[in-house]
């Protein structure tokens, strides 16, 4: 079927010699979605993105991007997508304006269109640095914003952002994500990879990759309830806790898993009755409160599950 998907990946595999970088991955992304792509380095995220941008020919499987597939030609796909790669790749010895003008010239964009798009994008992004400024003199956050503007100059339907906020200050990261939401709200599909869990929370759906395989794909909330169907509590011991209290908790049959989180402990408990018993036993010296798992908890569990 060729539904109204922005990205369709069907049984995609990419092999480099004996190494399988992407292993039989399938998923679909709808237009206007913020699609998060997570996984450790080497999990196959960048390789997948490169295939989707027409930079890499898959070993097997099919991809369809913005309604186009390999039969329409890689060039046709390249016209419909924007790509911001992991590394900062603007030209340092050129000005902001020259970088944009070069990107426009490669896409044969007329001068007036370039001027209009630059104005629009700078407005959206809130980029206020002078165009005559050399890129090497821009601060990190501005560089990322300019990279994004360059990737979106030709008004692509799908934007691929490969770790766009790596090495950027927290305030600039937050700014950048506001931007991503704005872009998605305007109907563009944003396909983004990240290592930051707070960023992953902001995605519409998250795909988790592990050693070339897709091990989970869902909305952040759904992923949490699926990974942790049982209650999760946080235990913080106050002063006056008996020395061996944590051993007692560990021995409790209802406690399925216990992991330290800084000075606190996270325990997943078999059922509500188990939680009540814990509260009763520890109540005099510790606080026990139910929590929703963080995405980090979820990924640790999912990855461990996939390894088993």
């Amino acid at each position, binding site marked *: 079927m060729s539904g109204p998907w922005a990205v369709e990946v069907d049984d995609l595999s990419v092999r*480099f010699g004996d190494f399988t970088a992407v292993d039989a991955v399938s998923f679909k992304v709808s237009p206007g979605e913020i699609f998060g792509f997570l996984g450790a380095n080497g999990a196959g995220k960048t390789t997948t993105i*490169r295939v989707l*941008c*027409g*930079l*890499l*020919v898959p070993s097997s499987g099919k991809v369809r991007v913005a309604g186009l597939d390999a039969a329409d030609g*890689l*060039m046709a796909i*390249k*016209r419909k*997508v924007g*790509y911001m*790669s*992991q*590394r*900062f*790749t*603007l*030209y340092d*010895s*050129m000005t902001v304006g*020259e970088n944009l003008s*070069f*990107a426009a*010239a*490669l*896409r*044969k964009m007329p001068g007036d269109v370039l001027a209009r798009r630059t104005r629009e994008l700078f407005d959206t992004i809130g980029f206020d640095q002078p165009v005559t400024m050399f890129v090497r003199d821009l601060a990190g956050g501005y560089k990322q914003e300019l990279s994004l503007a*360059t*990737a979106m100059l030709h008004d692509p339907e799908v934007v691929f952002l490969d770790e766009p906020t790596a090495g950027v200050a927290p305030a600039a990261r937050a700014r950048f994500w506001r931007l991503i939401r704005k872009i998605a709200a305007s109907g563009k599909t944003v396909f983004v990879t990240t290592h930051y869990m707070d960023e992953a929370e902001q995605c519409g759906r998250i795909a988790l990759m592990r050693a070339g395989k897709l091990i989970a794909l869902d909305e952040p909330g759904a992923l949490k309830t699926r990974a942790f169907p049982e209650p999760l509590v946080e235990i913080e011991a106050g002063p006056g806790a008996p020395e061996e209290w944590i051993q007692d908790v560990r021995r409790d049959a209802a406690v399925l898993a216990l992991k330290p989180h800084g000075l606190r402990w996270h325990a997943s408990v078999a059922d509500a009755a188990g939680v009540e018993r814990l509260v009763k036993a520890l109540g005099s010296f510790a606080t026990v409160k139910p929590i929703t798992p963080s995405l980090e908890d979820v990924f640790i569990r999912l990855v461990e599950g996939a390894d088993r």
Partner: protein
Amino acid sequence: MSSVFDARRAMSIARKETWHIRRDPVTLIVSLGLPVLLVLFFGFAINFDVKSVDLLVADGDHSRISRELIEVVSASGYFNVRRAASAAAAADALGAEKGKAALIIETGFGRELRAGKPVEAQVLLDGADNSNAGIVSSYLASAEGAVRARLTGASAPPVTLRTRFLFNPELDSHWFVVPGIFVIVVGLISSLLTALTVAREWENGSMEILLSTPVRPLEIIAGKLAPYMALSFAAIMLVYGLARLVFGVPFLGSHLIFALATLLFLAATMSQGLVISVVTRQQQLAFQTAMNTGMMPIQLLSGFIFPIESMPALFQWITMILPARWYMILTRSLFLRAPDFSMLLGPLSALMGLTAVFMLIAWRMFKTDLEP
């Protein structure tokens, strides 16, 4: 061939490269300053002229005739005549590198000659210094004719050897060396410049973004070649001025053909550099490869120092893939003779062919996918 090449995209790459070049003092210095400096330096340093060779003379005869022989040799101006006590002393002095050649005249040389018998004087040459030995031996051989004329007097028709050197009558080795050096210097630098340019984009990741646009390999190749060609052409003009003004090398050929030959040579060496760049994808490796493939082969096999005609057939074939070999022929004949265009057709078309082959290889080897 709009599906392979779009001139406007190539132009935009060229414009971008021009920005890079203009703002990178290192590139400018290396491409314009270095050739001038090297040609000046080596132009003065390398000198094939053989003058004031130390010649040890052991005269065991002490006759009028032996003295005449020595006088003729010393009058040639090529030798610094120094006396040796005996033949053995002369040979020892050669061994101790106190001279480059020895002339040994045995006792009875004059008497035998007057008696009408064939006589011989012995010449010893320091064969370890191969380049001088050849020249010295040919100087002495030509002295032989002059000696015979003087010694035999009117009784035999005077035999004189008149050697006239065509095209470089002064036998000024600058005339020969300078056009050669500039081929080598510009050839090496120009291939180095382009060897680094594509590798640089791979290394800093901008190639990935470049390739995510609809740009095609041939457009990148052409766009990168053009500005560097212009740059190196300017370098050649500087060096040309140097050859004419500083070294006084004449230029007898056509400037138009020289410009054409230069463009073809630059196109060939630069596309060779691009092949290196496209294949290595790393600046360090590209640099080393360009130096290793450029330096030694060009110096030794281009005909700069060692005549190609005296190489074994296999090596003569190998020299054919060196753009410098063809440009060397072209510059030397354009500077020093006024050649017919028909004589230059061969080297010119060889350069054209090499450019086409290197371009084709660079284009075909240019990977548009990012397989690590």
